[in-house]
């Protein structure tokens, strides 16, 4: 992710290697990952069963004010 111009580093930020997993498919800077050590399907299922947040938890658009998706549809974004 370090070499992606869509996600520039802010001053003071340095790249760090962490084990992460994406819970939904999409453009990664907007989809957001969670920290995860799961390496097998069973481990992913176990993590998902114990999750306290929904799979959309990191989706940037959901934090863009209520109804942002509906508004974008009306504006012809989709």
């Amino acid at each position, binding site marked *: 992710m370090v070499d992606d111009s869509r996600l520039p580093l802010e001053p003071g930020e340095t790249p760090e290697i962490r084990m992460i997993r994406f819970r939904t498919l999409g453009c990664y800077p907007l989809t957001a990952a969670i920290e995860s050590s799961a390496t097998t399907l069973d481990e992913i299922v176990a993590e998902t069963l114990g999750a*306290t947040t929904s799979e959309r938890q990191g989706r940037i658009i*959901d934090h863009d004010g*209520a*109804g942002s998706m*509906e*508004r974008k549809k009306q504006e012809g974004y989709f």
Partner: protein
Amino acid sequence: MDTLRFITCGSVDDGKSTLLGRLLYDTKLIFDDQLEALRADSRKFGTQGERLDFALMVDGLQAEREQGITIDVAYRFFATSKRRFIVADTPGHEQYTRNMATGASTAQAAVLLIDARKGLPYPDQAPQSHRLDARHSPRRTGSQQDGSRGLVTAGL
């Protein structure tokens, strides 16, 4: 595992959406981030003062939130260890009856909600006229009165 499809129906403002949101909340089927969003939405659009407005769990359209009513059918999926549920929250306004019928067309059971404080809007009409044919329901849905509102105890 069985899947039960049901709807909530009844007159406007009798608490259909609120009942569903509350049901999801009480059975701990709302994730932390969804609850946080509900808190923020309740502050912005809520009709319950400082308290959570559970209707906003299912009334997601801007027009619904601004007017505090249900317009479109909203489907929610949830499951318990015994059964899967697909519930359709339907509008109570007469002008949106068509949307209610859309939700009812695939439902096996219906929860008819009547606010006992207000009674039926048209007392001369028998409530049977609103009752769905529940022949395909795998299990009878029971209900009990809790205060002034009917609270569902649908064999969860």
